[in-house]
């Protein structure tokens, strides 16, 4: 059973993608560690971390694509799952500081000493253990997504209403994490990390290892997503996306299908956040900003939703653009991003991947084809066109 599923997951496209990211996981650290600076082919350490950050964003975009591109759930709150995974990692890193903090308290992080707290709050217990923290990276976003999805999907909240709810969720978390008495460092968040798994976090080898871990995690995410979307469950997800109520009349429990996709996706987003934090060195409530979640949607839309490679390309391309803009023309970045989104919605409904197929004349794989149908039984359920959803809709 499992071998069959694995076999199905490894179609040609997935093998290519996984192969590329595994190669990158080896080559980039080698180019950083083995080729001396100044020589041709050397990748400077800052660039390794920057690329690692892009790859963690790629995992995040892939996670969003699983729910949006394949299952039709436009989440505008995926940044929340990313940030929660990031906070879980950040808590582990804070506890590794030990007595090296400004106040030298062996247990309490600086901000708690500053707030005159005497004991570690109960929810910080256990985070000194790496594996416990990693379990929380999966568990906390997964649980939140499960509970949120359980109530939302059971009540059949769909379309814009669901998108607004996800946006409200991340906004509520933003406000909560800003508060000092929440015990997550308030406004400043968690930073000044020292070690990860015993290695100094700023060290070149640690940076290279973090990059490799991110690239491998991306390869694994591709494997998992490919396994899901190529299975019959993946076909059911697409059926839900295109004709939700028809799927119900075939006897599928649409709410469980959505709940599965949403929870798996949130866990992936949490992993992305956990890989992001040690590479950028900080996690603060700004990661919960609703605008961040909207950016993820833009990456995915631009790259091409409903494909595995699209969101990865989208995340990398947009963030390369962002890095370039924010160093040369910082005030223009948001306008550029907005323009990019409008243009991709208008001219590239299937994203860069769709354009590729158009230019090179290959028919797009049916599984990723944008839905063109809107049946009478779907009326009122699909408000996708209102939510900036680039899928074509026939006149009703």
């Amino acid at each position, binding site marked *: *059973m*499992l071998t*069959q*599923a694995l076999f*199905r997951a490894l179609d040609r496209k997935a093998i290519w993608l996984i192969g590329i990211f595994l190669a990158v996981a080896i080559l980039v650290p080698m180019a950083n560690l083995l080729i001396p600076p100044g020589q041709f082919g050397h990748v400077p350490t800052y660039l390794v971390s920057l690329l690692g950050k892009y790859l963690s964003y790629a995992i995040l975009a892939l996670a969003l694509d699983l729910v949006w591109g394949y299952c039709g759930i436009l989440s505008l709150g995926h940044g929340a799952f990313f940030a929660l995974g990031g906070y879980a990692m950040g808590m582990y890193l804070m506890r590794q500081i030990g007595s090296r903090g400004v106040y030298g308290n062996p247990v309490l992080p600086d901000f708690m000493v500053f707030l005159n707290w005497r004991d570690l709050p109960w929810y910080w217990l256990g985070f000194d253990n790496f594996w416990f923290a990693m379990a929380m990276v999966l568990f906390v976003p997964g649980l939140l997504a499960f509970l949120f999805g359980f109530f939302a999907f059971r009540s059949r909240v769909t379309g814009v209403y669901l998108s607004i709810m996800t946006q409200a969720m991340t906004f509520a978390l933003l406000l909560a994490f800003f508060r000092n008495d929440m015990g997550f460092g308030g406004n400043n968040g968690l930073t000044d990390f020292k070690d990860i798994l015993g290695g100094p976090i700023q060290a070149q080898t640690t940076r290279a290892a973090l990059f490799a871990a991110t690239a491998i995690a991306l390869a694994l995410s591709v494997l998992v997503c490919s396994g*899901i979307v190529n*299975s*019959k*469950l993946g*076909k*059911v997800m*697409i*059926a839900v996306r*295109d*004709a939700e*109520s*028809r799927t*119900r*009349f*075939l*006897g*599928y*429990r*649409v709410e*469980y*299908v959505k709940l*599965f996709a949403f929870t798996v996706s949130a866990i992936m987003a949490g992993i992305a956040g956990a890989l992001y934090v040690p590479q950028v060195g900080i996690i603060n409530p700004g990661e919960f900003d609703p605008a961040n979640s909207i950016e993820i949607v833009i990456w995915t839309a631009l790259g091409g939703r409903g494909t595995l490679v699209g969101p990865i390309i989208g995340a990398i391309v947009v963030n390369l653009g962002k890095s370039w803009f924010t160093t040369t023309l910082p005030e223009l970045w948001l306008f550029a991003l907005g323009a990019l989104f409008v243009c991709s919605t208008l001219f590239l409904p299937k994203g860069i991947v769709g354009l590729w197929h158009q230019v090179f004349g290959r028919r797009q794989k*049916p*599984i990723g*084809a*944008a*839905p*063109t*149908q809107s*049946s*009478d*039984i779907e009326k009122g359920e699909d408000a996708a066109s209102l939510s900036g959803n680039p899928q074509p809709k026939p006149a009703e």
Partner: protein
Amino acid sequence: MSKAQDTMLYLNGVSVAFDGFKAINNLSIIVGPAEMLAIIGPNGAGKTTMMDIITGKTRPDAGDVLFDGRTDLTRLDEAAIANLGIGRKFQKPTVFESHTVWDNLELALKKPRGIFPTLFYAADAPDTARIAAILDQVRLSHRRHELAANLSHGQKQWLEIGMLLAQDPKLLLVDEPVAGMTDSETEETAKLLRDIAGTRSVVVVEHDMSFVRELGSRVVCLAEGAVLAEGSLDQVSANPLVIERYLGR
């Protein structure tokens, strides 16, 4: 309740109103096991609404809806009702357009519907044979790898009938199956439905009278959400009320 025993579908005193408009008004209909029933009636008579009630899409305001003589359908949702063995073909053909013809049938095939059985599902030889047989039956073998979106209207109707067959239901609700079909296709459909009715209960809604005649089944004429006349097609179409309210128009 004794009347409900030995029936496949039992509707008694069912009413539903939309914003005060009574779409179904004290409707009572019985369908026996392996019986075919044709339902005719003017536009807006409530034929589709009746199917919505049976399949859990619409909750009735009053009345009993029993399946197989005992299961109260008004308490169940769409998926549960479908899994009991009630299949439905929609008035406007609704197939999964971004899936291939084959995948549409695979999705409909009677198999465990849970998340994990679906995730790890692999078609075995009997499944593939079953799908291939259905493809033959609905004459779509040559288009099995095409996207359903590329089918003609009539072919989509056939595909949806094929999906019904794949579901292997005990009761089939078929809403206007021959709209958009040629005469010979219509004839084929009648033949297919008659075959199916040998072993299962079938309810067919249709405006095409020659098709209804070919079905050769009991006929009910609905109007304004209630039964206007009932009997053989000849009896029903000779009924002055039916002529006035439906056929004469």
